[in-house]
């Protein structure tokens, strides 16, 4: 049986078309298109896609013809057979002599993992949106955009080469724009959407340039597929070539540019300013795009091209330091925010920094593992935040919340699971993945990076606990008329929160070394193993148990600090104004940098064009027109009605003829 991989993106895309049609045709009616139909279809197609992904795992197993080893020992020795990669080429895309690219998909280990939670969590968030956006007039349009986003994300993950991935890359950028600016009647949302799109675009430039340089390294004989690229880089025959100075420089340049693309999508320094502003979109958008899927594309790219990056150690140094710096900066910024979604946005940036840090020290599988767990706990945190906002009729300022653990128990329970995971308390999902990263950083990256990462972990615990305190545990501070409307979310919003909350607690067990559960690691070994082997595992350091204990101590320290600050009243709960000056300066630091480095040059150039070049060109056109007018006027004189003038001109013609005839006579 031929694998019909094209169905995986095609189904959500079809959902986009159907919902789009519903939105268009239902726009004339009073209330808009039918919510039931639109919501049902909007959830159905991603769900079918998810089922197909699961079947793809299992189907492979059948194709593989191995014996299913189901060990019903709960938790221990659970072995799931490895997925063997397979692909499907759809059509020849660009066929010139030197560049031969086919449009196709490839389902391998990395793609399989990503697809599981992209489609799975995607479906859950679509279900959540049905409840969250139920009253919104543009419901069908929202479901259409979400479906389109999912389709593009699947293409990104499933692509068999960088160019197919780039198609999905651009597509998710577009959908991000559409969804952030969904409530487009408010111009501020449109501005935030534009900002996201443009900053992404700057990253895309890096992606493409890096790809071109990579193609230079590979030579024209290699097709641009991931399989070919990894084989080329793993080939021992090319090791000498890669060690030579010019090729190494080319590889370094290429990877630096690709890194720029990754930072654009994953909101790292220097292209991180768009993510906090992206919170202007509806909460399901923030949950899906800016927590679980799109922002992880950068890390995905790094893991996909791990073999390439392994040959550019200088770039990896840069990656590690960018990750560490971003994580630290974002953690401090999250601490001073007052909007619940902004706190979570900076938390996302910080966690992405951790993932980049992991990749930078050469632990790509740890990075992807953190992607996996982060999708669960960040997802539930965002969904919970949405539930709180929904309950308080749109209130987003944490200084006006409090005491909600009694009013919204279910939401509180789900968010507590997410909080438990993110601060790294024992056996939660975040505990496993973050400690894995810290361990790798210490062993491979050195003590400096480790200390930065550890400090960031402490601050993470502080601000996340601050969030929980201000929203749930402290005294109620919300306005009375909001109080009268507080209600738990409907079931469609609850179910995803339960699932993700549960995942936050147990997802970490996919790779829990002390319990000898290393399915994830073995699963990823095929795709990122050789790169990691090249970079060398760190020499044996302190024992893992010790490191994990240090991690737990750091988390508990952070929690205690948060409670202490709250007791002292440092959180300024009763103030209502905007952020204080230093807080605002810190937050807008990178916006300022981008303004100077990016926007001012553009403004200067455009001023030059407007005030110098434009009048020049207009003047030239005018001069040209004037010349034509003069010439026309001169010619018009020949059409004179006066007899003698007419005759005179004819005689002039005669003279000209005579001159011609007399020319040859010496």
């Amino acid at each position, binding site marked *: 049986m031929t694998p019909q991989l094209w169905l995986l993106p095609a189904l959500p895309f079809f959902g986009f078309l159907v919902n789009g049609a519903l939105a268009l045709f239902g726009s004339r009616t009073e209330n808009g298109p039918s919510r039931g139909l639109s919501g049902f279809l909007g959830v159905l197609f991603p769900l079918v896609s998810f089922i197909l992904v699961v079947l793809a795992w299992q189907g492979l197993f059948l194709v593989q013809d191995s014996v299913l080893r189901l060990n019903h020992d709960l938790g221990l020795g659970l072995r799931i057979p490895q997925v063997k990669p397979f692909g499907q080429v759809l059509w020849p895309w660009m066929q010139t002599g030197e560049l031969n690219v086919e449009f196709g998909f490839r389902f391998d280990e990395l793609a399989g993992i990503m697809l599981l939670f992209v489609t799975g969590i995607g479906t859950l968030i679509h279900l959540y949106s049905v409840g969250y956006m139920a009253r919104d007039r543009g419901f069908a349009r929202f479901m259409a955009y979400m479906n389109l986003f999912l389709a593009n994300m699947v293409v990104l993950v499933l692509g068999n080469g960088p160019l197919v991935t780039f198609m999905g890359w651009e597509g998710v950028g577009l959908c991000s724009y559409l969804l952030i600016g969904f409530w487009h009647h408010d111009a501020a949302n449109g501005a935030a959407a534009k900002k996201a799109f443009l900053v992404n675009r700057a990253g895309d430039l890096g992606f493409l340039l890096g790809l071109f340089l990579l193609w230079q390294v590979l030579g024209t004989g290699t097709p641009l597929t991931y399989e070919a690229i990894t084989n080329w880089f793993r080939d021992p025959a090319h090791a000498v070539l890669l060690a030579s100075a010019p090729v190494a420089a080319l590889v370094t340049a290429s990877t630096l540019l690709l890194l720029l693309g990754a930072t654009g999508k994953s909101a790292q320094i220097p292209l991180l300013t768009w993510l906090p502003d992206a919170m202007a979109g509806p909460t399901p958008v923030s949950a899906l795009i800016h927590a679980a899927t799109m922002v992880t594309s950068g890390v995905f790219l790094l893991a996909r091209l791990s073999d390439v990056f392994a040959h550019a150690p200088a770039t990896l140094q840069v990656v590690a330091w960018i990750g560490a710096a971003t994580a630290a900066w974002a953690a401090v910024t999250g601490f001073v925010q007052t909007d619940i979604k902004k706190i979570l946005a900076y938390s996302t940036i910080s966690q992405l920094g951790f993932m980049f840090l992991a990749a930078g020290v050469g632990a790509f599988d740890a990075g992807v593992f953190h992607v996996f767990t982060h999708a669960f706990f960040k997802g539930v945190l965002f969904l919970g935040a949405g539930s709180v906002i929904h309950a308080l009729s749109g209130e987003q300022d944490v200084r006006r919340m409090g005491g909600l653990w009694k009013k919204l128990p279910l939401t509180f329970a789900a968010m507590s699971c997410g909080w438990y995971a993110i601060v790294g308390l024992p056996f939660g999902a975040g505990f496993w993945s973050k400690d894995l990263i810290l361990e790798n950083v210490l062993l491979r990256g050195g003590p400096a990076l480790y200390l930065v990462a550890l400090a960031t972990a402490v601050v993470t615990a502080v601000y996340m606990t601050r969030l929980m305190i201000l929203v749930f545990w402290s005294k109620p501070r919300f306005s009375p008329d909001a109080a009268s409307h507080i209600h738990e979310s409907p079931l469609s919003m609850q179910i995803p929160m339960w699932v993700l909350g549960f995942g936050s607690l147990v997802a970490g067990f996919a790779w829990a070394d002390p319990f000898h559960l290393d399915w994830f690691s073995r699963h990823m070994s095929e795709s990122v193993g050789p790169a990691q082997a090249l970079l060398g595992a760190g020499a044996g350091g302190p024992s893992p148990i010790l490191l994990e204990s240090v991690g737990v101590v750091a988390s508990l320290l952070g929690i205690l600090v948060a409670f202490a600050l709250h007791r002292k009243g440092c959180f300024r709960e009763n103030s209502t104004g905007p952020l204080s000056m230093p807080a605002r300066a810190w937050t807008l630091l990178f916006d300022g940098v981008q303004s100077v480095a990016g926007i001012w040059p553009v403004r200067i150039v455009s001023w030059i064009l407007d005030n110098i070049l434009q009048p020049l060109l207009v003047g030239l056109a005018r001069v040209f027109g004037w010349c034509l007018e003069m010439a026309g006027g001169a010619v018009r004189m020949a059409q004179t009605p006066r007899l003698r003038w007419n005759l005179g001109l004819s*005689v002039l013609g*005669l*003279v000209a003829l*005579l001159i011609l*005839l*007399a020319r040859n*006579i*010496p």
Partner: protein
Amino acid sequence: MITQVYFWIFSIVALATALGVLVSRHPIHAALCLIGTMVSLAGIYSLVAAPFLATLQILVYAGAVVMLLVFVIMVLNSAKDDHTPRWDAFGWAALAPSAATGFFLLRVLLGADAAHSFALRSTDPPAARGTVEALSALLFGDRIGAWSFLFLVVGLLLLSAVVGAVLLAKHHLDSPSAPSTPRPGGH
């Protein structure tokens, strides 16, 4: 020898009277100068063994055409036309192309191979050539040829010209109003 003298006399008179036409104030003076030119030319024709043509020139051209011109000048008593200036700026400007035409014509004529192409080749004695008998033989000779046909066509042409002229002029003479003033609203 004597031919040359006569030629120079006739040509100078012809040029002088032609200039007279150019600069005359009154059309009548110009017409008289024109007659002078034509008669001089007739003289030159007779010098080049074209007696019939010379006679024709005086009888028809000088005697009939210019007479017609004079009659019309006299019919239009406002022919002196005080309003029209004799010479204006355009006049001076018009001299240039005319001079240029003359100059280039002369250049072509007096050029290198002019002497060769303009060599006198006729071997017949000059006096015998342009006589009435010779020309008639050519025109109406035993073959019905192009020339006789042309002769008939010219006759038709003259007829149609006369008819047309009468029509053109009569149209206005028929109108009830005075012939020299146009009707208001034109006609």
